[in-house]
């Protein structure tokens, strides 16, 4: 530190900077308190707190750089192989005559007891599974869609084939099961003459219905590309061709969207004639 120009002046300037920085910090803290007390405002709160901490940061940084020595010290670093005598003594202490390590039989029984406890402790994990004791594969494979279940809009109103608009898709749900994760489907009107493969769920007056959930990772395939009659998943850009039985044509999805078999009931509303033609959403091991 000493012997560099005029140390006193340098030092005086530095300590003045440090003191000023701490002063600014105190002002920042007071500013934060004031902003909070007068109703709060997120940007000002953040700014004043940041000034308060930055003042301390600047002060301490200048203090460390200008007023404290940097480097120039050395500390010995003893190697990590213990002296042989220590090793021997430690081993003796661990395995001495009254050491529990020597009681093989007792240790084996203790091990058995702890192992049994550990095994038993796994059983309460079962409580994490659903309460209705439904097997996952069965739950994943089935949905509330069944023969005679009406297709309804998000607001619960039933849908006639004529209600399905041209040029866009209509999200539909099974009546009474609006918020379940595996039920969303969409109805879309297509020209049957353009079909290159028959829709798996059949068609009623040009209306076809498919599961809304991408067969890759289960996101809703919410983007409809009208001209090519394709739907696109916003998550990973899987694309399905609705004219070819919702076959995947791009992106990471490998299975077509399941179709929903439909018909119209006596009142003219669209109803399902069964569950989806395949389990909706992402794949799983039990899916054959």
């Amino acid at each position: 530190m000493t012997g560099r120009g005029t140390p006193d002046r340098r030092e005086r300037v530095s300590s003045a900077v440090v003191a000023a920085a701490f002063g600014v910090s105190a002002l920042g803290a007071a500013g934060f308190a004031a902003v909070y007390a007068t109703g709060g405002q997120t940007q000002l709160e953040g700014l004043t707190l940041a000034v308060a901490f930055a003042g301390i940061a600047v002060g301490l940084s200048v203090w460390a750089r200008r007023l404290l020595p940097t480097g120039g010290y050395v500390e010995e670093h003893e190697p990590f192989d213990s002296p042989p005598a220590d090793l021997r003594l430690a081993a003796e202490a661990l395995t001495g005559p009254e050491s529990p390590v020597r009681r093989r039989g007792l240790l084996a029984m203790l091990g058995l007891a702890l192992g049994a406890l550990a095994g038993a402790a796994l059983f309460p994990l079962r409580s994490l599974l659903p309460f209705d004791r439904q097997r996952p594969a069965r739950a994943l494979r089935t949905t509330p869609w069944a023969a005679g279940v009406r297709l309804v809009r998000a607001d619960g109103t039933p849908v006639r084939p004529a209600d399905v608009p041209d040029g866009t898709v209509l999200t539909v749900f099974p009546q009474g099961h609006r918020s379940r994760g595996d039920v969303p489907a969409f109805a879309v009107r297509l020209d049957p003459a353009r079909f290159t493969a028959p829709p798996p769920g059949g068609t009623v007056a040009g209306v076809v219905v498919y599961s809304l959930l991408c067969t890759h990772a289960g996101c809703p395939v919410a983007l409809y590309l009208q001209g090519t009659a394709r739907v696109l998943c916003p998550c990973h850009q899987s694309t399905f061709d609705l004219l070819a039985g919702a076959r995947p044509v791009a992106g990471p999805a490998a299975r077509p969207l399941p179709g929903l078999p439909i018909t119209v009931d006596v009142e003219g509303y669209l109803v399902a004639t069964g569950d989806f033609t395949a389990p909706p959403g992402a794949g799983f091991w039990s899916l054959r």
Partner: protein
Amino acid sequence: MITRWLSGRLARSLDDRLRVAPVLRRALAKVFPDHWSFMFGEIALYSFVVLVLTGVFLTLFFEPSTADTVYSGAYAPLDGSRTSAAYASTVRLSFDVRAGLLMRQTHHWSALLFVGAIVLHLLRVFFTGAYRRPREINWLIGVTMLALALFNGFTGYSIPDDLLSGTGLRILYSVTQSIPLVGEWLVFLAAGGEFPTAELVPRMFVSHVLLVPAVLAALIAAHLGILLRQKHSQFPGPGRTENNVVGSRFWPSYTVRTLALFAWVLAVAFALGGLAQINPVWIYGPFDPAQAISPAQPDWYVAWGDGALRLFPAVEFRVFGRLVPSPFLPGVVFGGLTFAGLYLWPFLERRRRRRRDRLAHQLLDPPRAHPARIGFGVGVLALFAVLLAAAADDILARILRLPVLHVLSILRVLALALPVSAGVVAYLVARALRAGGGRGIGELTRSDVRSAMRFGSRAGGVSTGVGDPSPVATAEPAAGSHDAARIELWRDPDGLWRWRYRDAVVVLAASQAYRSRPEAERAAATAYGDLPAREVAPSGGRTGEPAAMRERAGRIAGRAGGYLALAAVALWRGRRARRRPPP
């Protein structure tokens, strides 16, 4: 004066009860190496502190439940709408709790800083070979903390139950579900049923605020405890050996510097939290399994996984007639390989050497010393950079005005080509640098690179072995200074012995004083082997300094206190003046 007397009293009364002086003396004299790259770990630590502080605030207002509730509050667009309690309380926390939005955004930003600092710290440790024996345990702990940080970040931004994170959660559910044999059971165990379940938010909440932070805190303690025991590694340099640490002392230099860094982290976190909007869940809306949001990107530290899901081709296959769904390879296998590779790297590298490297290393490798390591590391980094870009392919498509599927094809080619080419370039540059000695990348000539590409011959001093230790940047002090290097010992007027290392380039003072000459000699011999040691006359140098420093510090504290007092008086008088009724 008063503070000195007070701290003296406090220290003495503590010592009477705990006998801390012998430990404290050594702890205060602990030497930290001076290099900027050693700060990343500290930044991660301080980000964790910010996360805990702001997180505690958030838990006081957040409701971890998906029960139906009606939001009523200051945010007009959602006022009166039915949402889950988790979502409603997040919006309330952002708009109706004073300073709530600041805390929430600071919490989110600190999480990004936390993972960023961990990754930079990991890269520093990787490229300098700091994970080698004896530091493998800390490498394993560090990788575990990275995994926990990623997981906790994910649960953290998923619990508000908004549309964006709900979609992300569904993707993670699908990826877990894709694991052969156990996937379906795993997701039902974790979520308590078919997605979405009411149990998911409370379970993630407990994991986010209790389980994972507790494990992280324990691992941080272990990480630091092992660091203290093993001491820091250091870059090679004059006076530095495998048996010493050269740098600044913990007290006072590093204490002040590290507190400054803590304050910087707090300042940056709160500045970002106040000024930069992050995760505006009120714009995304509440989660609905039938709705999607576009464009949809996760936080950056899990985006590589999302990018892998987007890039990987649609590959599904059947084993024994059972389905292995398409997210399995890019999601589970790739993620698993990434972390398995991280965990196993120190042991894989050790095995690959011709002579198994069983030595303890305190001196770091300059990155160029191991072209194979740097080539591999840069290649992997390039792959992850492409995956990060792939997670934003829909945004890239919008910016480049290209169909998103074209962008996808380009990125697929890049994901294969870029890692290989970047790795090869890094490998060759490192070889050229290693052969040419201590010059930077900018000074490399074409002939350097050409000679680096010549394999099999030892022409031009290029070493052929890919993994053998660097012949250039060696552990020993430079040959020229070695002759002049010596240890100087002296006895100070206070009766304590001190020593210093001196060569043509540096003078390094021993960090602590010793009560006897043999003690000092033993320490010097540990640090420098059998360098010649001789006694010299005591010099003013280092020993005179602390008093002057203390005086300076006292003056600064006094002045700061004075300004504070002045400001307080001014404020108080101002208030009084305002309160006083007008005459």
